[in-house]
């Protein structure tokens, strides 16, 4: 993790946003971002993440609350005085200007001398490895190159903060992955604060220091990628990040950090980690990652079940097994390909998992 993270640099305080006075797009958002941090806002479309970004950039006004940048409230500052760089979804490169002119634009409006502008533009272009392309027009560049120009343009005037609104959405998969690393490296190198918006969870996990998962205008969970994946706090996060097997049941008893859950249809009883549940007698959703389920009846003897193999999918490094377990025929287990797998479709199979790996969460709406 970045060592430069010390104090709050961007602060969202009790932010509400509504466009029509009837529906809240963002509800009571409180979010602190430290200097030098790479924070990603992740969520499905319509979850309020882009609106939040636009409020930070100054293109939308919060309906309630205040945003602070470096301790100063910024709601009254127009976007052109905020000194915030932004990479737009479709790059928003100016088609009538060459790459150099695009990069020089923010410097020219700041009345920086010609010589200095030239030097900075070249430096920024070199940073994104496009030093030779300065005299071309955006339309003469590939998507990936345009993306880099947009990135260079957002950084060339040394903004206090860089915002990125799904900047890799238009690229194909390979290029997207390559650019993820490139953006991450640039961030590590110059240590600028980045607020990144995406709906792609793997992108968020790859790049971020911290991720804020948005849904329905509310931050569902804000934490580091590993915690988000391994310790989701509610059923939405568990479902949105990575794959997980879900089972619904009723809480029978609670004991320390664990609870015992009676599954629906009398399919059995599961001991699970108590995370986000109500009282005994209430319903809960259990969530376990496919890679945390092991085949066989070993383990510590808890949570052992029998399932029927419904489908086998060979994926090279692992085999994806779809099972019918406890009345759930969408139950997925990932078996590492160690050469000893010899089950067929229709076989009965024993499986088990550790109570620490199955989390009892709230019921999804």
């Amino acid at each position, binding site marked *: 993790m970045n060592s430069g993270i010390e104090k709050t640099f961007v602060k969202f305080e009790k932010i509400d946003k509504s466009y029509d006075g009837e529906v809240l797009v963002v509800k009571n958002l409180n979010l602190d971002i430290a200097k030098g941090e790479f924070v990603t806002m992740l969520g499905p479309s319509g979850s309020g993440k882009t609106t939040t970004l636009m409020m930070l950039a100054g293109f939308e006004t919060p309906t309630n609350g205040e945003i602070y940048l470096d301790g100063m409230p910024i709601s009254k500052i127009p*976007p*052109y005085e905020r000194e915030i*760089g932004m990479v737009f979804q479709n790059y*928003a490169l100016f088609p009538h200007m060459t790459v150099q002119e695009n990069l020089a634009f923010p410097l020219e409006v700041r009345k920086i001398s010609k010589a200095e502008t030239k030097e900075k533009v070249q430096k920024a272009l070199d940073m994104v490895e496009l030093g030779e392309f300065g005299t071309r027009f955006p339309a003469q560049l590939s998507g990936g190159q345009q993306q880099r120009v947009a990135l260079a343009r957002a950084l060339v005037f040394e903004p206090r903060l860089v915002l990125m609104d799904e900047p890799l959405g238009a690229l194909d998969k390979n290029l997207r992955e390559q650019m993820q690393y490139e953006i991450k490296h640039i961030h590590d190198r110059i240590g600028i604060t980045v607020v990144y918006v995406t709906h792609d969870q793997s992108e968020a996990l790859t790049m971020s220091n911290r991720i804020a998962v948005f849904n329905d205008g509310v931050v569902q969970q804000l934490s580091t990628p590993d915690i988000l994946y391994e310790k989701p706090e509610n059923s939405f996060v568990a479902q949105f990040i990575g794959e997980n097997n879900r089972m619904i049941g009723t809480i029978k008893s609670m004991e320390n950090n664990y609870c015992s859950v009676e599954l629906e249809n009398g399919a059995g009883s599961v001991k699970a980690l108590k995370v986000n549940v109500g009282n005994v007698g209430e319903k809960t959703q259990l969530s376990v990652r496919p890679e945390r389920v092991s085949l066989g009846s070993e383990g510590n003897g808890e949570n052992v079940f029998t399932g029927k193999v419904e489908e086998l999918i060979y994926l090279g490094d692992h085999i994806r097994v779809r099972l019918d377990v406890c009345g759930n025929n969408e139950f997925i287990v990932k078996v590492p390909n160690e050469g000893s797998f010899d089950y067929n479709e229709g076989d009965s199979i024993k499986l088990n998992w550790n109570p620490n790996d199955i989390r009892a969460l709230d019921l999804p709406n």
Partner: protein
Amino acid sequence: MEVPISTAELLTTDGIPLKQSLKKAERKNKLRAFLLVFPLLLFIIVTFVMPIGDMLLRSVDDAQINTVFPNTFEEYKKWDKEKDELPPEEVYKALFLELAYGDKIQVGRALTRMNYSKSGWKSLIKTTSRAIKKVVRKEEFPDSYKDFLIETNENWANPTFWYAMGQMVNATTPIYYFNAIDMTYDENQNVIRQEENRRVYVQTWLKTLKVSVYVTFFCLVLGFPVAHLLANLPLRYSNLLMIFVLLPFWTSLLVRTTAWIVMLQQQGVINGILVWLGILNDDGRLSMVYNETGTLIAMTQILLPFMILPLYSVMRVIPKSHMRAAQNLGAKPATAFWKVYLPQTIPGMSAGGLLVFVLAIGYFITPELVGGKDGKLIGSWIAYHLKTTLNWGLCAALGAILLGVMLVFYWLYNKIVGIDNIKLG
């Protein structure tokens, strides 16, 4: 092992040269494509190329009169103007015979043409013809045709008539073009300017250009914000606005022009309101119609959609994020507009500008109705000569010059903006 790279012709698998094989494969497609466009090609030739070609020919054509007086002109060419003051006897004789036995309708048509080169020809030939008819009936041919004709009408001794005939001897003539720019021949066949009170075309040309430039400019100034609104309003409102823009297209041009007369005249709506509000005195009413102002106002309104639509189609595809990006990079809204938005609308502005200018320069009905004497454009003169004086040669010359002016502007435009920069949608 090194693979030899063949410099010889590429062959297909069957050993036929590749190019030949390709040509054969493509031939059918090419033929089909040609047949598909052939009706259109024919249509363009018949309705566009041929009329324009005909117009260009007419503007220099002087062949008709040659078919009426072939021998006269033949003999005329032999006349040495340095030596003899008047043409030789042969010219008089040929003219006598051709008037005597020529086709009456053909001669009549020729008279109209002769009158363009010098007024007086018509009456001269008519009186002469009558005398000749008498002679022919009695079969008392004179000894000297020259003396006979001069006796009939003393104008036959006037060399200026004979000089004027010189303009018509050739099968082509530049006279219509000279006329179209207020030039004519003097008695000695030198090209001179028309008498002052007969100069009308040059000033009309200049006025046409001026009005067209102004109308284009006003359309741009008025159309730009409308197009911008159209492109940026939510669909619900922009559709409504679009109907307002297009509404004039569904109304007859005559109705719209007449409506402007109602609005602008001295006792009209606008003057009425201004007087009622006390801004104008009752005797200080503005004259806004039947002059150049009226032409400008009405033409701007009528041609406005031709500016708005291309502008709109260009503005619609400029992403809204560009203005945001510019502001995010530190440009004030005005700078962002000037440096980022405006340059991207140039294709639309030039398309609209060229369209409006070309339409304005040849405009006819509106200036004719609201222009009065002062606001008439060159189109009105073309119509006048086409319908009233039947001087089609002059019409054609005016039209050809109009075409030339447009081509010059097109060329200039291509030099300055580049024609590939034009965008209609």
